């Protein structure tokens, strides 16, 4: 699929439209639970309304009925006992379904899994695609690509505060807790573009911390991964070369990495293939020249509180920098 085609479809973020086996398990459990709880709701509310409808009316002057203090109301007690027994049975049923689903989630076969280490930062996602051969590892940020039909094992870390990974169409949540490592497994079974969002309140820009997951056929994924492993080609035209100088010698390189250059900062997202990504600002703004220019000049106006400082570049420098960034495919 081309980037153009992606841009036409809004990414999905919806637990009720599962696109992977784990989310399907969760969706089935949801349907079962919703059905059972719906029945209970109808039954109890129905009994309550019927009681209100059938009972005779009284007022403050009506003599209280004290017979129950003297003799036990066996018929009433029996009804309550049956209702309680039925509730207990329903709860046991739910418990069994819950445990069964947990087991199903844990049993996703992981042979030939894609291994990703995902680290949460205030307020962006750092991804490292792991490989047995360290030379084949690569970094990216805020956008994951995964192959359809292959399992993905995501190792979760956090660098500062607690974040939570949640891609509802593919899988439920898992916390990313500083000092602890967690893993989550998922598999996309339908190609598409899925949106995830940080689900644990993580500070001032918690709302603007999204993650894009592109599930694509294995061949497309492998092609993408191959491109990510290589440094973007050195710019040829003079403008972009000047832009690279602005990047490497200026503020940018203090926090950002571009593979194959001297820019090796680790504070902010890896930008080696920035131009191949759909969004900037952690899934918040389209990766278009105008947005990028605005982001570089004054990130605070787009995402107040973000750690990236404003950059008062000369207009020529800014244009050169943008031209360079656009070569990072």
């Amino acid at each position, binding site marked *: 699929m081309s980037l153009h085609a992606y841009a036409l479809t809004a990414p999905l*973020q*919806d*637990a*009720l439209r599962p696109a992977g086996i784990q989310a399907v*398990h*969760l969706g089935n459990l*949801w349907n079962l*639970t919703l059905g059972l*709880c719906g029945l*209970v709701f109808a039954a*109890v509310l129905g*009994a*309550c309304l*019927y*009681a*209100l409808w*059938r*009972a*005779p009316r*009284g*007022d*403050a002057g*009506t003599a*209280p*009925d*004290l017979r129950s*203090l003297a003799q036990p*109301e066996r018929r*009433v007690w029996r009804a*309550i006992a049956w*209702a*309680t027994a039925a*509730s207990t049975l329903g*709860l046991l049923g739910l*418990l069994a379904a*819950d445990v069964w*689903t*947990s087991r199903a*989630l844990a049993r996703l076969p992981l042979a030939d899994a894609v291994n990703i280490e995902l680290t949460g930062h205030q307020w962006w996602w750092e991804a490292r695609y792991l490989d047995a051969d360290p030379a084949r590892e690569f970094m990216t940020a805020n956008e994951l690509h995964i192959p359809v039909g292959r399992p993905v094992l995501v190792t979760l870390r956090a660098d*500062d*505060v*607690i974040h939570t990974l949640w891609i*509802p169409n593919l899988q*439920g*949540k*898992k916390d990313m*807790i500083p*000092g*602890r490592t967690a893993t989550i497994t998922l598999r996309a079974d339908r190609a598409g573009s899925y949106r995830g*969002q940080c*689900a*644990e*309140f993580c*500070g*001032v820009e*918690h*709302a*603007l911390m999204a993650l894009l997951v592109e599930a694509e056929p294995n061949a497309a994924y492998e092609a993408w991964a191959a491109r990510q492993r290589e440094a973007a080609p050195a710019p040829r035209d003079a403008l972009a070369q000047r832009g690279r100088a602005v990047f490497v010698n200026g503020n940018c390189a203090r926090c950002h990495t571009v593979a194959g250059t001297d820019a090796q900062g680790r504070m902010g997202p890896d930008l080696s293939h920035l131009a191949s990504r759909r969004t900037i600002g952690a899934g918040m703004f389209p990766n278009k020249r105008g947005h990028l220019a605005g982001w570089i000049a004054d990130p605070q106006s787009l995402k*107040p*509180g973000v750690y990236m400082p404003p950059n008062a570049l000369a207009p020529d420098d800014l244009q050169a920098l943008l031209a360079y960034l656009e070569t990072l495919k």
Partner: protein
Amino acid sequence: MTVLDTAKGSWPERGDAFTLEQTWSDPPGLLGWFSAVNHKTIAVRFMVTTFIFFLLGGLLALAIRLQLALPNGKVLGPDLYNQVFTMHGSTMMFLFAVPVMQAVATYLVPLMIGARSVAFPRMNAFAWWIFTMGGAMLYLAFFLDIGPDAGWFAYVPLAGPDYSPGKRVDFWAQMITFTELSGLMEAIVLITTILKMRAPGMTLNRMPLFVWTILVTNVMVLFAMPAVMLASTALITDRLVDTQFYNPAKGGDALLWQHLFWFFGHPEVYMIFIPPLGFMSSIIATFSRRPVVGYAAMVLALIGTAFLAFGLWVHHMFATNLPELGKAFFTAASLMIAIPTSVQIFCWISTLWTGRIDFKTPLLFVLAFFVILLLGGLTGLMLASVPLDYQLHDTYFVVAHLHYVLLGGAVFPLFGAFYYWFPKFTGRLLGERLGRWNFWLFFIGFNLAFFPMHVLGLQGMPRRVYTYPAEMDWADLNLLATAGALTIGLSVLLFVVNVVRSLRHGAAAGDNPWGAGTLEWSVSSPPPMANFERVPVVHGRFPLWQDAAQPAHVTGLASGYREVLITSVADAKLDHRLWLPGSTPWPFLAAVATTILFVGSIFTPWAVVWGAVPVAIATTAWFWPKREMTGRRVDSELLP
């Protein structure tokens, strides 16, 4: 003056009633206002204070809803929004929901059990003062733009020194210290009152169900609140004196906070929810003209709920990497707690089924429980499931769930309780017409506001976001929710109008406007300062419904001193007489001293040292015996 009510022909002589009224009254004037210890005076102040916090928390909720009404909202920026939602949650949980139940209880419990006061009346006054000062401190900080912004749950490391520099979270943590201190003291007051000050004959088996709920709740307070006080104190020391309890880089643990917080936080839900079960039982009994079905089952269900409530906290932490097998136990416990609640719901429905129903406003509010709490309970079963929680946790589904539980389970019954006991508090009935408008607007507004949030959560909207993009298709339901919130606001406004109007123009209530059966309705409305001119002897669960038996009253209690009867725990047999201390400003002054210590310690740890001196002086003066009183007490013991 209520004590002159001639309808109470059973009173032997006016002189005695006057003496009693004088004895139990707080002194007049400004100093008297600061010296008040009568439980009804303090309880009314406490209720009014918590209601003001409810209104403030409600206004914050409206601000949240206005911000989220449309995508990319610009009403509040992210920084202010985070303060506002933190303040909303903290206010509703710590400054309204738990204390309002204790406030109502300190008014009603002595009247329901035939006592002239709560135990430890000075501590009761201190608890209100310290609560008020803590709440005032929090709002002062908020108005100065140093309001907490790390959520009402203040998860570390976000709330820790590295990621929340400045004083904002310190004010939150000290507010916890204030309110928990107050809550623990009220728990001691209420438990002691209930166990040791019941009128003779009111065995545990004859206690009104409301009193049972208060007893159970406050025992829970004793076990739950120390956990959060410990947690917030460790947070403060991490922030102020560089301890490392929660810092994983130095061997601390971020999850420790969550365990301690939820070990308190989950029982807290039940501390909010159980007293309203008592409102339910009181109101349903009165308005279906019969005792609630299954007294023993109700009591056992309450106790069962209280025990299980301490075994569920991990269901707030299912998304962490705790062991899966362990989580399954917490699923089982979370599902199990539905059983005692179901038993109570079935008992109430049976009561309505077999009763004769009087549809008054208090009953309407209580009946809303069967829709709203029921739905909230069922979504609770969904959240109890580990796998479902993976999808639902930290989304708007949870926001919907908790409001269904807390408003349906606590606020609706609480409003019902206000309509029910307002005549006892004030001597006047609340307007029935406005009451119905109040109810229906609240009910409809509530469902408009919160039902759509279930769907929003499933559609992927996380909690605690200050905005959302237009592409997410969440706009329509959010707008609907905002419309619902405004409807609730209108309904609460009508309630305030109703209260203000009824205070002046409401119909006179008389002693027992609803024809209820428990002891609080045997005294005039509002009750005399001493509650009971003659302390009753109790022969059944519904003294006003059941035939009178002899002896009807206790005689021989002094009316010139604040003398109360102490009875045995289980059977309420006469034990001894006790003189309660009189009115004094020292609880107020001790609260001021404690406030200086607590607030000072936000700015310097040395405040704990020098701040202890005025606290010690104030508490010593508080307990300083008066030679004259001691002498009289000795005399009274020699000559009974």
